[in-house]
């Protein structure tokens, strides 16, 4: 299986559901191995963008290229992680991880589970796991396929704050160790700032801003550069309107947990 991160070129992409236009004039490039975070209000079309890239939805107009080849004709290995982990409740944890594999995969699955720290739960039913554990299993299930592009659609938004930070560290670690381009949808700005090389904001159906984050890793959430960036992005999100009050009341209390759409 080919296992290299891929470059994604999106050119003049437009997507409508019936008469309703969701996305338009999307043109951007995700570089090989880049970690891109997509933020935006609920219903702004973030999931739709991911689903288009994953070929789960049909592009209405425009082009999508993986390493220069139209995505349709590419055999690039693309995997997605969802907010609901989508484990099969009728399969034990290990069998969920091995889903879709042929041949003798159990050693591989155990290795993948070990990477996410859940080897000891391999014979459990998914229903007995906590939300964070389920997402770890889903992550292991994606990793075992050695994807060239891993997409994460709000994978942590259902988790409590502590588990979320733990998972962020794990995702960063795994992204650094395994070669893949990562596309993360989140509505938690601090999460985007913490993890991504670049943040894209989707607003009114197109890319409203595109901001690189040139802060070296490992990153500390208390890094003043990150806090400043987070504030700047929140500012932009609120179009400068209420940010002053937000600053005083909420930023001061908890700069880390401000979300675009609570």
């Amino acid at each position, binding site marked *: 299986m080919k296992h290299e991160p891929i470059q994604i070129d999106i050119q003049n992409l437009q997507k409508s559901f019936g008469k309703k236009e969701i996305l338009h004039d999307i043109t951007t490039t995700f570089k090989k191995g880049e970690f891109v975070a997509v933020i935006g209000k609920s219903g702004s079309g973030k999931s739709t963008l991911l689903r288009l890239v*994953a070929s*789960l939805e049909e592009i209405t107009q425009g082009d999508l290229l993986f390493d220069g080849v139209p995505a349709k004709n590419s055999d690039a290995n*693309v*995997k*997605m992680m*969802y907010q*609901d982990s*989508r484990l*099969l*409740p*009728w*399969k034990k944890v290990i069998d969920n991880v091995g*889903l*879709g594999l042929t041949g003798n995969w159990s050693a591989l699955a155990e290795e993948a589970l070990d990477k996410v720290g859940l080897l000891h739960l391999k014979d459990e*039913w998914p*229903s*007995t796991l906590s939300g964070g554990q389920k997402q770890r299993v889903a992550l292991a*299930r994606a990793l075992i*396929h050695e994807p060239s592009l891993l997409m994460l659609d709000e994978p942590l938004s259902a988790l409590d704050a502590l588990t979320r930070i733990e998972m962020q560290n794990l995702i960063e670690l795994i992204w650094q160790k395994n070669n893949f381009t990562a596309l993360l949808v989140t509505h938690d700005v601090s999460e985007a700032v913490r993890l991504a090389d670049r943040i894209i904001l989707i607003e009114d159906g197109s890319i409203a801003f595109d901001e690189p984050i040139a802060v070296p890793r490992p990153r500390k959430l208390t890094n003043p550069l990150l806090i400043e960036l987070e504030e700047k992005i929140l500012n932009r999100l609120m179009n400068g309107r209420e940010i002053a009050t937000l600053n005083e009341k909420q930023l001061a209390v908890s700069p880390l947990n401000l979300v675009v759409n609570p």
Partner: protein
Amino acid sequence: MKKMTFDFRPWAIPFILIIVWEVVVQMEIVSPALFPSPITIITTGWNLTINGDLTTHIGVSLGRALTGMLIGGAIGFALGVLNGLSKNCYHYLDTTIQMIRNIPHLALIPLVIVWMGIGEDAKIFLVVLGVLFPIYVNTFHGIRNVDPNLVEMGRMYNLKGWQLFRHVLLPGALPSIFVGLRYALGVMWLTLIIAETIPTQAGLGYLATNAREFMQTDIIILSIVIYALLGKLADVIAQFGENRALKWNASYNK
């Protein structure tokens, strides 16, 4: 050592009723010819077992029931899967199936006798007709109601065709299919009991009908009791299978 907590309470009333029945018959308050005592029935059952009659008749009845169940179940399952997976098949077939389903299958007995005579075919056909629809409806709904998100996920993990069916669609539909199966088992016995009143040379129905002509009430009651026991047994087996196959479901629904 599980038996230590055996709960006698559910069995207290049936036990007392049987004792009372025995006493009432012994004291000849009612005619023993019309109401044979439990001991008489047990003795009759024992004698019929010893001479092999009972096992033969039970075997014949079971054979009819299972043949009908297998054929009807297979057809119902296949149609349910087909219509569950293919919108096109659904549009062509479902209305027809629903129309046939609305005919009470036992109302067809006179017609079935005219068409097929009074042999085995007619009885098995009635059972087939009875069990087909509950299995069909529940298989169909089971397949249709599998979480589309899981199907999408399965496709992303390279599952297609038979693999997708085996790992995602069938297990997802299984709880509903078992509901259909257990319902169908009930229909199966009911249909068989009535179908076996069509003149025949063997089977529990024959045993009962034949006994009626000779006023052998003990044998009549014995066959009724056996029908009941077999019905219960079938349900217990189905429940056992269900618990094994749906182990995940028990904890999932908690």
